[in-house]
């Protein structure tokens, strides 16, 4: 039959030569191949990424660990409307809403806020629908952080202590967090 790709090789069933029957040349060939790999592993940079110490470079649109944003005055943006929890397909988000008291205006942006806000990282599928659902631009998935491995299951339930952004802007993640509408506006005016 005519070969269509011209890549077919014709195999001949020849009896093995003495060198082939003696095994040893083939064995030395194999040994040299593995030795090349040995020296490659010992000298060149290894392709293994030693995860907790090293991380692979993330894409700028990578959806990693969640963060609850603050506004410019350091007030929490979340108003505990529950839309993220409704949007969440994995039902990973739970929250308890509370009313802002007098004198807490510098803590919470709206009159209602989340007293507790928990995300179960074992349930979360990092789809980013909470981010899309949020009307207050409060929740984002950071592009440079992942939920680290833990030994206990309850350590994967992230409360507000681990989700809310640090108050000082210096301690916040340097890159990868998507801009809030205000930040984007500011950037736009700066560029213009």
């Amino acid at each position, binding site marked *: 039959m005519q070969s269509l790709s011209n890549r077919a090789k014709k195999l001949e069933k020849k009896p093995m030569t003495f060198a082939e029957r003696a095994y*040893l040349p083939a064995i030395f060939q194999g*040994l040299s191949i593995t030795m090349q*790999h040995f020296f490659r592993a010992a000298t060149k940079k290894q*392709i293994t990424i*030693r995860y907790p110490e090293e991380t692979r470079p993330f894409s700028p649109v990578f959806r990693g660990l969640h963060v609850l944003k603050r506004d410019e005055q350091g007030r929490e943006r979340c108003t505990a409307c529950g839309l993220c929890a409704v949007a969440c397909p994995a039902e990973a988000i739970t929250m308890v809403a509370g009313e802002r008291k007098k004198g807490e205006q510098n803590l919470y942006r709206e009159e209602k806020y989340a007293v507790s806000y928990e995300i179960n990282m074992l349930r979360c599928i990092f789809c980013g629908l909470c981010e899309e659902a949020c009307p207050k631009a409060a929740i984002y998935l950071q592009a440079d952080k992942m939920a680290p491995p833990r030994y206990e299951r309850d350590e994967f339930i992230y409360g507000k202590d681990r989700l809310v952004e640090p108050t000082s802007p210096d301690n916040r993640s340097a890159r990868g967090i998507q801009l809030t509408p205000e930040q984007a506006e500011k950037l736009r005016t700066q560029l213009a």
Partner: protein
Amino acid sequence: MSLESIGWPNFSLGWQGIVVLVIFGVSLLIATYCTYAERVIAAFLQDRVGPDRAGPWGLAQPLADAVKLFTKEEFFPAGANKALFVFGPCLAMVTALMSSAVIPFGNSLKFGDTVVHLRGIDSNIGMLYVFGIVSLGVYGIMIGGWASNNKFSLLGAIRAASQNISYELAMGLALIAVLMMSGSLSLSTITLQQSSATGWHWGDIFAWNVFKQPLGFIIFLVCAFAETNRTPFDLPECETELVGGYHTEYSSMKMGLYLFSEYVNVFVATAIMSVLYFGGFNYPFQYEFLDFLQTKAGLSVDWAHNLFVLMGVVAMFAKIFTGIFFFMWVRWTLPRFRYDQLMRLGWTILIPLAIFNILLTGVLITTGIIPDLTIAVR
């Protein structure tokens, strides 16, 4: 019978006891770190990293493994012969450790009148002793596999027994060619004959038996792989066919002993090979080194001799480690033999080759191409 009469003048029991303990400890330590080395070498040969979590570069990994094995549940399968089930791994470990007794790791150290021999015992039937102990080793596997009352274990044990018997024949025949040249079964005598004083000259290397017995060495090497149940002859374990082979039913440190005894066996096999074929504690340009120590370095006669001997110990262990590396290198290169291939290789290729090697050696000795050292022994 005094100790002088068997050739040990100025023998010091205290020092000799310490040497025995050190050899025991060193074999265990090397076996321990073989488990680590095997994993790192395997990783490097496969472009991976290997264990690097426990301690710096993962050096505490053997400790972590030992702790794990000791704390695992000790499990006895229903219907197992309990006494034999425990006896199997013990025998495997004991026989593995016993065979290192006759290996000369170095010449004798001198401290004034005291002489310390760097070997457990110097028996004039050393090689025969090693062979006897090594063939006992198969009983450890056999008993363990049978006592488990499991068909996979039994299959693995039977394979181990038939494999070891088949390859011991070719190994012994390969050894006979060496004995024809040396005229002695004593491992120290065989080692000393491979120094340039009695052999060929050029940096002492060509006095090594491997240059006089290349064919015998290859046969011995292949058989050593089979005797220690290492890939490509690891049919007794054979994970893909027999679950775990003879140690399928073993858990906890009993399995640890089986795995451990394999590494002790590898250590002993490489030590024997370096003694028989690579000159043992001889090293290149050793007499030039001794001459330098005695005349130029200005050391006392004893210390020049001791340094010379200690360098020999270093050389011996360098050879052993190279051998162990080679065992691991082969393991991660070659696939496992099929059982009928194993038997065909053993009976129809290696044994005839070994017999041919004996004939060849006989011809070479009578024609004087290989020096006849037996006269010196007699």
